[in-house]
């Protein structure tokens, strides 16, 4: 894994939500806002609805929703909740 400061690191994220429950909607909005304001076009966010895909919930151990897994940059970090604490999320993303 290269750690060059200049070249932009790839941001790969997975957000697990449960249908359209309010927490999940909030989380989608919150993460989009943070990412778009700081690293627009440099991230890849995959939103997984566990209500229609429970197998990926099993595979990733998603017990609570919403749950954000920051796959890259590594190490993999997990944040649960509506992601309303912007500073905490930014710190986890190392932004």
């Amino acid at each position, binding site marked *: 894994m290269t750690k060059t400061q200049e070249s932009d690191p790839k941001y790969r994220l997975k957000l697990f939500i449960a*249908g359209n429950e309010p927490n999940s909607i*909030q989380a989608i909005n919150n993460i989009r806002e943070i990412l778009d304001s700081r690293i627009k076009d440099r991230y890849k966010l995959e939103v997984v609805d566990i209500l229609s895909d429970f197998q990926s919930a*099993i595979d990733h151990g998603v017990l*609570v929703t919403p749950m954000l897994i920051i796959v890259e940059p590594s190490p993999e*970090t997990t944040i649960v909740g*509506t*992601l309303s604490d912007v500073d905490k999320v930014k710190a*986890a993303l190392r932004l």
Partner: protein
Amino acid sequence: MENESKTDKSALPKIPTYIAGLDDILHGGIPSNRTTIISGGPGCGKSIFGIEFLYNGAKNGHPGIYVTFEERADAVRQNALTMGWNLDEMEKQNLMFVMQANLDPKTLISGDFSLMGLFAIIEGKAKSMNCTRIVVDAIDILLRMYNDFNRERSEYYILHDWFSSRKMTSIMTVKSSQDHGMASRYEFLDFMADCVIHLDQRVREQISTRRIRVTKYRGSDFGRNEYPYVISDKGLSIIPISTTGLRHRPLGDPISSGNERLDSILGGGYRRASCVLIAGITGAGKTTMANTFIKSACDRGEKVLYIGFEESEEAIVTNMLSPGIDLRPAIESKRLRFLTSLPEAMGSEEHLMRAFNQMSDDKPDHIVLDAISACERMGSTRTAFEYLIRLLNHCKENDITCILLNQTVESMDIHQISGMEISSMVDTALFLGMTEVGGEVNRMLLVLKSRGLAHSNQFREFRITSNGVELMDVYVGEGGVLTGAARQEQEAKESANQRMREHRILQKRQELNHKEAAKQAKIAALQSEIDMFKTELDTLMEEEKIWHDGRDIRARLRGKIKDDNTLNKSILGNI
């Protein structure tokens, strides 16, 4: 099997757990489509309870999901395998699903969240497996994520509601401890659940014992006592002693004790399905007596289980060769089984379950317990008493003859020789003792009790020969029962004694006559002495008178009559 109510049409639908003894206490099983809480401290067997419930269900074709928050799924499967439950196989058949729900402690929390992930997984899996049974181990770990008492309460309510709306039968385990903070924190679970079972492990006299208690069961009656349970290599087993009625059958036919003469003394032998107590001091031949019976029972094709707390199987087999009892063929033909262990090795419940399990595997006709006196080492006298009563009860209910050995002090009181106050359960009691006569130590046998049979109540001498136990003829004479060489000498001695006694009576009678004569002689001698003294006194008095008369005459001659008159009078008065 499922949703079946045994007695009442209106009764709550229940699901049998198939955990030994538990369904009796729960009057059928846990409530169907409802939530059951299992609480207990560490090491109580909460997880085993959950796994056993699901595994037993899976074996009967009911799939189940096991959600583990504490242990890794691999560890759960491995632990289950030690009980002989192959979860892997069940998972392959889609009858079970072990879900590892580890919450990474490094997980960050930012804002509110819900348990939808868990529900989605369970719902998805349950649908694909067509499953309605779920175990959550442990719910407190899941709830603690919120770290907010009110939130924990409402999330639990959502969970509870979610399960019941989907007609799922759930078991949730929760840790409880003596610590009051913890206990009260999850107390609300007990209020919300439909059935609450407490598991408890305590240490008494350095030996741990486990107790189970159902504290709540909505819409159903249940056994309200605290019941001992064990975790054996076959899972959880509960012994509901209080639900066991006295379903004893009457005593069976007499069966041979292995010794013809003993049979005749007992009035036919031991009774089948009875309780026989062989008590005696150490070395009196208790084990030999028991093995005499074992040998004859096995020769008849019957099965015996030997529960030994004192000697190893090898030691017993070897020792019994000297009185000519060869147990090896019986062991080879699997008619005789040994279950030996040190009493201290485990708690009394575990000892009991080992015995019960062995009995249900072997189906013995008879058991031998060697010895009652060692049972106290399982803990306290009370523990030993419970162990014995439950063992005896089990034997009586299953028509198993119970031979109990007990090492005692030299006492023939049945309450003392049985020890543990079990004398009322004893049908036949033999006392073996040793007595020393004329430098010889001899073995003695006394039948103290032989219920329902006419028996001899005389002391018998017996010998342990290379052909086993040999009983002698009874001899009743002076000084109680006689044994050994002394018995042979006795008769000769008796007639000599008789002659000696007659002679001594004669001698005494003569002596008495002599004494009588001597008395008469002494009386005569004394009388003559008295007479002699009297004569002497008379003589003295006469002399005195003569002396005074002489003086008066002399005084008158001297003219002094007046003065001497008084003196004279006093002398005469004194005489």
